[in-house]
């Protein structure tokens, strides 16, 4: 019995009470007796060699238990180089082990670790470590790194250099209307309010428990086991709550390996809470991007060519590609010719990683600004231009999209926003002295599928516990999976306990790529089928059961708490009676982790439309976003309240991206000059207006049995473009490098 309504119930979070009372335990909050503290020392040059490292003064500080540098760091066992995220292998964006040689590859790289009994001692001792360097000229810009540039063929198995039709000829066609512009996005840093952190606790020299703030307990388990040469089952990872992640807790970063090794050397458990300062260098960021868009369209607005050239950075010690073009232009509009080119430059800056909608987010910013510029060149309404180029089929794979309802999203969004009242003339709309601008953009994010397994324990009192090594990053996973379990198992919501965040549980993939609801939901569905079968097997052998001697295949769930003959529901039996008569207190089943089924006949992608209003004082042009309407088409929405919050969160982060967020680096030394929350401006309460979120469409059962395509990331796609387009409408100034700070509008 799968739910067929578009939107599930609006329940408060099942873990909400723990969160509002302060009882929820985040990783570094677990009480581990005799726990010491780790504190790092970071390089203040971007490239070179360590020539000397003086640790005596640090070692002399009372309470100091160990000082580790590349000179005395025990060796890690080798872990394989390139690993994907879908399987159990785990993710390493930075591939060099910490303190493994005298090389410095980026500013902020950890060059020493101090372990001491208290935070105060560790922090102070770390300040006494003296490092001497032989600096070398770092590569810091795309221009400087041009000889090392790489054009990867694929990103996570998906081709990223796309050539469809003849873009070059169309771009030269004098009868077409054309625009060509370059858009810049800066380095952005995730900055979840919970900084990354780990407690490493060795029970003996072969057994390690880590309380780690992670989006992937099974991945951490595997990487730690292999790096340290331990049996997989002797490494346990525990993480019931994550204080926000947005991608920066998906990979295993250096502090996790340092905590484990530091603890081994010091002989006590070690807690490492990454400082906010180091969250800007040691836990990933979104690479800056430079994207050049060339569009050509007929006079009535039919796209004939889209070219998207995207350039991004990575580090010398890691591999990460932000696929801006293939993940936006590669899926968005119908056009006879499409060309996407992606280039990655390795520079001496810390390693980037996926940040909420990696690729799609900066990609849709550039593409959707370019579409706005094209609409103006064509004197066409921006919504009408998008409708004219709507893609029913995947534009580069040429298969139909499943359950795509983007047209409805535009329509409902425009209606709710009042778009028809927009005067297209620039600087034409006012609120008193303030300039008013209205802009819109399309949002999109693919539906990803990974593999997972779930365990179900059903008890004779009709309660159930469901377990999977998945994660709740604030996404609402606890609530959504309790809901899915209740529906799939046929057990009342209040009687389901869903457990996650432990590597002991059946496999859950990285909580990334907005895959969890569908992937883990499918595993719960499969476990529910097994449960009903196991109950049926007991019933058909039991002469007191109305289902006695029935064929197993005819039996399925017919109502909450009951299995019966699917075609003749007068014959059914309750879970509780079946178990009681069999003398059982409980029954347990576990689904199998298998590679996800591929449907090559259809393409699965989520869609949406953002409409937004900005108000700007012409004298001091600070942009205030005053209204946002977002309409999303993501298949089934399992949990209405938490889903709305996810979209709001994406939009909020997009407001930051558009207007305030930037991590900048000293062009001479490569050191980040923005390394705290006073300088890195994430949106505050006063920056964010009411956000009107709605959902359209239908459950996408062609994608998975839950009908859900996921929605953690789509909210941030397109929103920066919608704001930039509104700013242009208000002021007549087109800012093509984010963030749109007041100086750029004067």
């Amino acid at each position: 019995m799968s739910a067929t309504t578009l939107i599930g119930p609006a329940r408060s979070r099942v873990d909400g009470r723990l969160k509002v009372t302060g009882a929820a335990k985040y990783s570094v909050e677990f009480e581990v007796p005799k726990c010491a503290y780790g504190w790092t020392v970071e390089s203040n040059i971007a490239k070179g060699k360590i020539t000397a490292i003086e640790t005596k003064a640090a070692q002399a500080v009372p309470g100091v238990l160990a000082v580790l540098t590349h000179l005395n760091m025990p060796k890690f066992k080798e872990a394989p180089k390139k690993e994907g995220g879908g399987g159990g292998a785990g993710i390493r964006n930075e591939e060099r082990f910490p303190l493994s040689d005298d090389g410095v590859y980026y500013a902020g790289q950890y060059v020493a670790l101090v372990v001491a009994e208290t935070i105060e001692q560790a922090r102070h001792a770390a300040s006494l470590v003296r490092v001497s360097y032989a600096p070398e000229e770092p590569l810091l810009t795309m221009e400087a790194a041009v000889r090392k540039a790489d054009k990867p063929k694929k990103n996570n198995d998906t081709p990223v250099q796309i050539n469809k039709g003849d873009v070059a000829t169309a771009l030269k066609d004098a009868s077409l209307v054309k625009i060509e512009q370059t858009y810049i996005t800066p380095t952005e840093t995730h900055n979840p309010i919970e900084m990354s952190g780990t407690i490493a606790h060795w029970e003996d020299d072969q057994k390690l428990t880590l309380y780690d703030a992670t989006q992937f307990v099974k991945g951490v388990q595997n990487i730690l086991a292999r790096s340290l040469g331990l049996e997989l089952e002797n490494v346990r990872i525990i993480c019931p709550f994550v204080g926000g992640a947005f991608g920066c807790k998906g990979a295993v970063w250096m502090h996790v390996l340092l905590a484990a090794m530091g603890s081994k050397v010091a002989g006590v458990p070690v807690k490492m809470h990454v400082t906010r300062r180091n969250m800007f260098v040691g836990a990933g960021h979104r690479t800056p991007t430079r994207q050049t868009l060339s569009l050509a369209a007929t006079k009535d607005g039919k796209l004939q060519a889209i070219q998207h050239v995207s350039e991004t950075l990575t580090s010398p010690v890691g591999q990460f590609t932000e696929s801006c073009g293939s993940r936006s232009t590669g899926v968005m509009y119908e056009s006879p010719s499409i060309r996407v080119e992606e280039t990655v430059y390795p520079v001496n800056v810390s390693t980037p990683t996926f940040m909420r909608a990696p690729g799609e987010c900066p990609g849709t910013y550039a593409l959707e600004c370019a579409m706005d510029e094209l609409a103006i060149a064509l004197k066409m309404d921006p919504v009408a231009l998008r409708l004219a180029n709507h893609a029913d089929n995947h534009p580069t794979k040429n298969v139909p999209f499943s359950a795509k309802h983007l047209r409805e999203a535009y329509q409902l969004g425009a209606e709710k926003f009042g778009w028809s009242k927009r005067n297209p003339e620039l600087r034409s709309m006012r609120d008193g002295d303030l300039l008013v601008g209205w802009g819109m953009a399309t949002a999109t994010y693919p539906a990803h599928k990974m593999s997972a397994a779930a365990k179900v324990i059903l008890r004779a009192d009709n309660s159930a516990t469901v377990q999977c090594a998945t994660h709740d990053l604030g996404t609402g996973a606890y609530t959504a999976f309790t809901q899915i379990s209740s529906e799939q198992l046929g057990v009342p919501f209040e009687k389901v306990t869903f457990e996650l965040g432990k590597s002991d549980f059946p496999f859950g993939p990285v909580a990334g790529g907005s895959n969890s609801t569908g992937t883990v939901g499918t595993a719960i569905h499969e476990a529910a089928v097994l449960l009903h079968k196991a109950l049926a097997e007991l019933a058909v052998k039991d002469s007191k059961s109305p289902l006695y001697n029935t064929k197993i295949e005819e039996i399925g769930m017919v109502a909450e708490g009951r299995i019966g003959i699917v075609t003749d529901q007068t014959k059914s039996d309750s879970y509780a009676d079946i178990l009681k008569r069999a003398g059982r207190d409980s029954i347990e089943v576990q689904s199998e982790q298998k590679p996800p089924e591929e449907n090559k006949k259809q393409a699965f992608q989520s869609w949406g439309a953002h409409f937004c209003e900005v108000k700007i004082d012409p004298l001091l042009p600070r942009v205030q976003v005053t209204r946002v309407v977002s309409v999303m088409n993501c298949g089934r929405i399992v949990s209405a309240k938490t889903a709305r919050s996810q979209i709001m969160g994406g939009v909020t982060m997009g407001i930051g991206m558009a207007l305030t967020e930037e991590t900048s680096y000293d062009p001479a030394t490569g050191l980040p000059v923005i390394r705290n929350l006073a300088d890195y401006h994430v949106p505050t309460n006063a920056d964010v207006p009411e956000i009107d979120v709605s959902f359209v469409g239908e459950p996408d059962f062609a994608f998975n049995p839950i009908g859900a395509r996921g929605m953690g990331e789509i909210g941030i796609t397109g929103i920066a473009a919608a704001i930039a387009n509104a700013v242009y409408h208000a002021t007549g100034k087109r800012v093509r490098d984010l963030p749109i700070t007041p100086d750029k509008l004067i």
Partner: protein
Amino acid sequence: MNDDLQPIDPSELAGIDPTGGLDELLIFGHPGTRRHFLKQVAGTSAAISLGPALMGIGSIEAAETDATSGGNASAAVTHVQLRINGRDHKLEIDPRTTLLDALREHLQLTGSKKGCDHGQCGACTVLVNGRRINSCLSLAVTHEGDEITTIEGLATGDELHPVQAAFLEHDGFQCGYCTPGQICSAVACISEGHARSDAEIREWMSGNLCRCGAYPNIVAAVKEAQSKTPAKAS
């Protein structure tokens, strides 16, 4: 004497979000405890190096000078008695311990969160004598005699405080990590009389960052809790 210290990154000195809802930093805790504090750190150079902190600089690191000049002074512990959520706790701690670290690392009161350790995010907000402060910016030894309330002390038995209940109902959080700070801040915001309109709530709650972006729901929650709180005569 300070040449052993790493230079303070000027970017860290920017201090407090100017739109923050905090009346003042209360680095020295309750004014009445100032003299006591100065006595406790006398004999070290901490009092001198805390100068910048007094000016609103968000770094406790300055206080470390005591150990560099005083040899093994970092091993010194000091005794402090803190009254938290109506209970007295006796602690032996390093005098450099912040109130936040005292709560989290010494008392296992991990409800108060560390989101920056620099007075820039509000995750560590607690109530001291009814006023909201950033506990990461305040040394524990300065709070003897103060009435400290943390998120763990708001509910009455099983019954949530109206602000907690409103956050739950309005989904005023996602990851929940900024939430204890938001809730403590909201309790004070309401009692300060700064929650009379949406615009006012937005402004006076802007010292508490929420990266998950729960702001509109936080505003709704504070508004509802405000409407259920009897108005305080001003």
